[in-house]
């Protein structure tokens, strides 16, 4: 039943070559799996990062100043300052180590920007330790929750966007 229909004319020439190669193939596959495993569990997670966290950026010292980087982390609760007149947005980004970088953003923030949200900003760290951001992105977590009793999502937006100091 499983005999190949439409048998190619070159199968006979092909079969002995593959028989002879067999131990080589086993070795090759072992190396292949090893390379894949190393790719996965080796220390490669450090270089394919989309953004740096505050402690990583600060650890770079001078080499991290005034070069284009992406910085990501959580907006520190209560740190958002919004000046309506000059439309100037400032906030602090923090990470699990508690390091903080102050960010000044000039781009239009996405509608989900709020306290304690994950964010990624693109820009440069100035020598004044203020991070000048040219674009602001939200990093959403993998949590999706319905609003609690009495909360309306639409209303939530309004309360979220009530920025202290505005």
């Amino acid at each position, binding site marked *: 039943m*499983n005999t*190949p*229909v*439409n*048998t*190619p004319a070159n*199968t006979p020439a092909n079969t002995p070559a593959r028989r002879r190669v067999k131990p080589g193939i086993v070795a090759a596959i072992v190396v292949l799996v090893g390379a894949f495993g190393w790719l*996965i569990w080796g220390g*490669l*997670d450090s270089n*394919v*990062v*989309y*953004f740096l966290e505050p402690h990583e950026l600060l650890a770079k010292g001078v080499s991290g100043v005034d070069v284009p980087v992406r910085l*990501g982390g959580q907006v520190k609760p209560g740190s958002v300052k919004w000046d309506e007149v000059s439309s100037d947005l400032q906030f602090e980004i923090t990470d699990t180590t508690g390091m903080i970088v102050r960010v000044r953003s000039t781009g*239009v*923030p*996405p*509608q*989900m*920007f709020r306290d304690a949200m994950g964010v*990624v900003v693109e820009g440069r760290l100035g020598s004044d330790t203020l991070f000048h951001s040219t*674009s*602001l*992105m*939200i*990093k*959403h*977590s*993998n*949590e*999706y*929750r*319905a*609003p*609690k009793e009495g*909360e309306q*999502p*639409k209303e*939530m*937006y309004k309360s979220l966007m009530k920025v202290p100091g505005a």
Partner: protein
Amino acid sequence: MTSAVANSPFEAPKSGRWLLFGWLAFAYLIAAQAISIAISPPDRDMGDLQKILYIHVPAAWNMGICYFLVAIYSMRYLWKRDERDDLKAAAAAEVGTLLNGLTLVLGMIWGRPTWGVWWAWDARLTSTLVMFLIFAGYLALRAFVDEPERRAQWSAAAGLFGAINYPIVYMSVRWWRTLHQVQSTPDTLDPSYALSLRLNAFAILFIAIFFIRRRYEAALTERVAEHELQAAVLGGSSRG
């Protein structure tokens, strides 16, 4: 009619039941979408946007299933040299590419209001796009090679090479720090969201199975027609 069949190494498929399957699959998709829109409340952060995920995520999962099928059928072809496996791999690749494109477009539509950007060059988004391009190349390879034997062997190799990238796409959010969030688990999902997601995942799965089957039937019928035409022209000798 029956004597003509002998001129081809395989029979033309008959597809009565699959047509019914297709109707049911689309009916189930409509039902699943209606139910999930009805039972799932808006998300507390993104409101109604969360409903986009009911197509985006199932499309991404089923894209993985399609590419897995490509790998399986390609290997089977190289092993058993049955031309039908090649046609099945091709059908799965085409549907996989379709779902891959859908995943990308829906992700962009979701990302613009959520992240604030249509596109970001992070590992997940980039690897998904690269995957799409690899299989676009696979389909182009099939289109540009006419000789069936050669086409089958080459595309089996190209399909295998392409499919090994899928684990990288899937795991990229875990291995590397990306803008894209990691996979949700039942713990991070509201129960009504998890239920809706599953309903829709099966809906897209059934649609994908139907599409692959139909595409395969079309390709197989075409090959049978070619065999029989050749046999007719050569006067009945059955050469592939």
